[in-house]
């Protein structure tokens, strides 16, 4: 360990120091990884690495697998996938997990869903741990005070065989967000505001720690939304110190510690925070009370504006791709698709917020609107609350759990040139289908746009 235990340290550095197995003279540390999540897309070649080198999985109990990216979200009763390549990819994950002794939550399991939604639900994600996954949105789990980051397929194989990776410690960026969000403004708007401020490369080389009253008063679902999009600011890691909100959310879940182990764990978790006099490499301060609903106008998540602002004179390529003119408003743009779901906004609170906007109203003609819950448990909870009926009555499609239209590799996609408003995390060129135009926004904003058939300001809807 590089730092003395009593020097003031950030939460990131404390979590890092607690997981150093060995250090190299060049400053890299061999970091111990407590948990590894697997999905079907990023691991076929990882298992090949094990086979090629004759290696076993060191601690199968620390691994948990679930198919999510490629799985269809409709017509899959009985677990059958019609599309051949997707069926083969999911079957390969099942076969690999069987061969290497890794627990798999399969398509017929009521807990199946997006890897970053199911892991917290199962309390596979815990405060104080290191957690990795072959998926960039692994930053999500930092909402629990875990050191969590996305890795590549080769690294997934290394983690399975060794429980470790050589890593370089990042610098730290503290993001303080104080104040109370205005009505109609949510966690998604907070994180889009942050990305708009620091840029899509603003967090490169840094681990973000979020703090301030707007963060500590946020629910766990909102905190996951905040950390989820840390990667869109270039940071592999985004963190929030765990507190009573965190512990209450975890307690009683499937893999949560119980009895004396729970007491011991919480006692340790309470110590997990940055020291008061810890020094961060950089600091950014945002005011929640002055935030507006955000909408992206371009092809990178940092090309984002308040819904009532004009499109800036941004990169010509972005404006051409999106079919927009500088100086004109995004408000009022007609949309063809509305998507509510993804590891950013596919949780129960997101569905409640969207349902509250559409109750008793109907999706505009020519708009395809769909809700894809983040997990089977979210879907069941929503159905128990009658939210599915609200969505269906309003003309939304109600799907089974998966990544779906966030990454558009399961058969759901937006046709070329069509305009989508989406709760997902990326508005990249072609992300929702070749030539598809994506505007990122919050669940409330997407729901309101689906009803109006165009991008609207949710604050005006609330005031009406």
């Amino acid at each position, binding site marked *: 360990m590089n730092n003395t235990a009593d020097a003031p340290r950030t939460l990131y550095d404390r979590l890092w120091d607690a997981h150093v197995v060995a250090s190299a003279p060049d400053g890299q540390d061999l970091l111990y990884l407590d948990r590894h999540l697997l999905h079907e897309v990023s691991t076929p070649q990882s298992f090949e690495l094990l086979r090629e080198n004759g290696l076993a999985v060191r601690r199968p109990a620390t691994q948990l697998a679930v198919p999510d990216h490629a799985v269809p979200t409709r017509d899959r009763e009985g677990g059958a996938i019609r599309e051949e390549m997707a069926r083969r990819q999911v079957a390969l994950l099942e076969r690999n997990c069987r061969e290497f002794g890794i627990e798999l939550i399969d398509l017929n399991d009521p807990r199946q869903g997006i890897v970053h939604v199911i892991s917290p639900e199962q309390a596979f994600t815990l405060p104080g741990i290191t957690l990795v996954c072959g998926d960039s949105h692994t930053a999500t789990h930092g909402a629990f005070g875990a050191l969590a980051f996305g890795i590549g397929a080769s690294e997934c194989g290394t983690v399975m*065989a060794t429980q470790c990776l050589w890593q370089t410690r990042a610098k730290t960026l503290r993001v303080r967000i104080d104040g109370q969000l205005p009505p109609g403004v949510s966690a998604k708007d907070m994180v889009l505001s942050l990305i708009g401020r620091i840029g899509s490369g603003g967090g490169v*080389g840094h681990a973000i720690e979020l703090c301030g009253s707007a963060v500590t008063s946020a629910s766990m679902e909102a905190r996951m939304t905040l950390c989820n999009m840390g990667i869109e600011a270039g940071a592999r890691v985004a963190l929030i110190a765990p507190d009573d909100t965190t512990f209450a959310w975890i307690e009683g879940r499937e893999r949560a510690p119980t009895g004396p182990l729970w007491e011991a764990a919480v006692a340790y978790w309470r110590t997990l925070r940055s020291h008061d006099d810890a020094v961060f490499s950089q600091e950014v301060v945002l005011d929640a009370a002055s935030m507006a609903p955000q909408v992206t106008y371009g092809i990178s998540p940092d090309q984002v504006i308040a819904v009532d602002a004009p499109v800036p004179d941004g990169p010509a390529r972005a404006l051409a791709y999106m079919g927009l003119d500088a100086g004109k408003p995004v408000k009022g743009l007609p949309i063809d698709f509305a998507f509510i779901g993804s590891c950013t906004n596919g949780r129960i609170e997101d569905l409640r917020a969207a349902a509250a906007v559409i109750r008793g109203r109907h999706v505009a003609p020519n708009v395809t609107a769909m809700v894809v819950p983040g997990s089977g448990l979210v879907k069941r909870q929503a159905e128990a609350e009658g939210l599915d009926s609200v969505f269906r009555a309003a003309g939304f499609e109600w799907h089974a759990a998966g990544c779906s239209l966030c990454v558009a590799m399961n058969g759901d996609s937006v046709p070329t040139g069509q305009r989508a408003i989406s709760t997902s995390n990326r508005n990249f060129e072609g992300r929702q289908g070749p030539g598809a135009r994506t505007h990122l926004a919050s669940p409330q904003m997407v729901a309101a746009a689906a009803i109006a058939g165009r991008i609207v300001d949710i604050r005006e809807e609330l005031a009406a």
Partner: protein
Amino acid sequence: MTPFTTVSGSAFALPEDDIDTDVIYPARFLLRTEKLGLGNLAFADRADLRARIDAPDENPILVAGANFGCGSSREHAVWTLADAGFRAIFAPSFGEIFRSNCTNNGVLAGLVGEADHLALMTAAQAGTVLEVDLANTTVHFGGTAIRFSISDVDRRMLLEGWNATTRILALHREDITAFEGRQRHAAPWLWTKG
């Protein structure tokens, strides 16, 4: 992995910032489960770039804008570039997961400073032949030489053609076991399932 020493090839200019891994390897091809033979899918939705990749050159060397390879962690982005012949990429900054994926696949991801990047991009747009010398972290072209930077670890990994996994097991098996012994005692709730 093949050790990386010196590589020369025609520069391939891509003067745009924030080229994400969805652009390098579109999501609809992620159902592929192999890592070889993906080269014809690189930049599949960018006809302008595809036409240049299809022009014959064994070792095109990519000179890209800032934040190259940001976004999704998909290693396919590196596999497709490697299969299309790219063995070195230079940019002012990289998406971090992409950068480590490069090293793990024997592809050099070198950082260049602003002034050097400008010179390199200008040369690249003229289709100049670049000679990359990893041992000395320099790129030579038309009588000029610029320095690039890469972490010592990545440099050694590439020069030696190391496999990260077997190397960790060969050198640190006992360290890992010792760490696990300490953690079992300090955080027993993480060890209830073995």
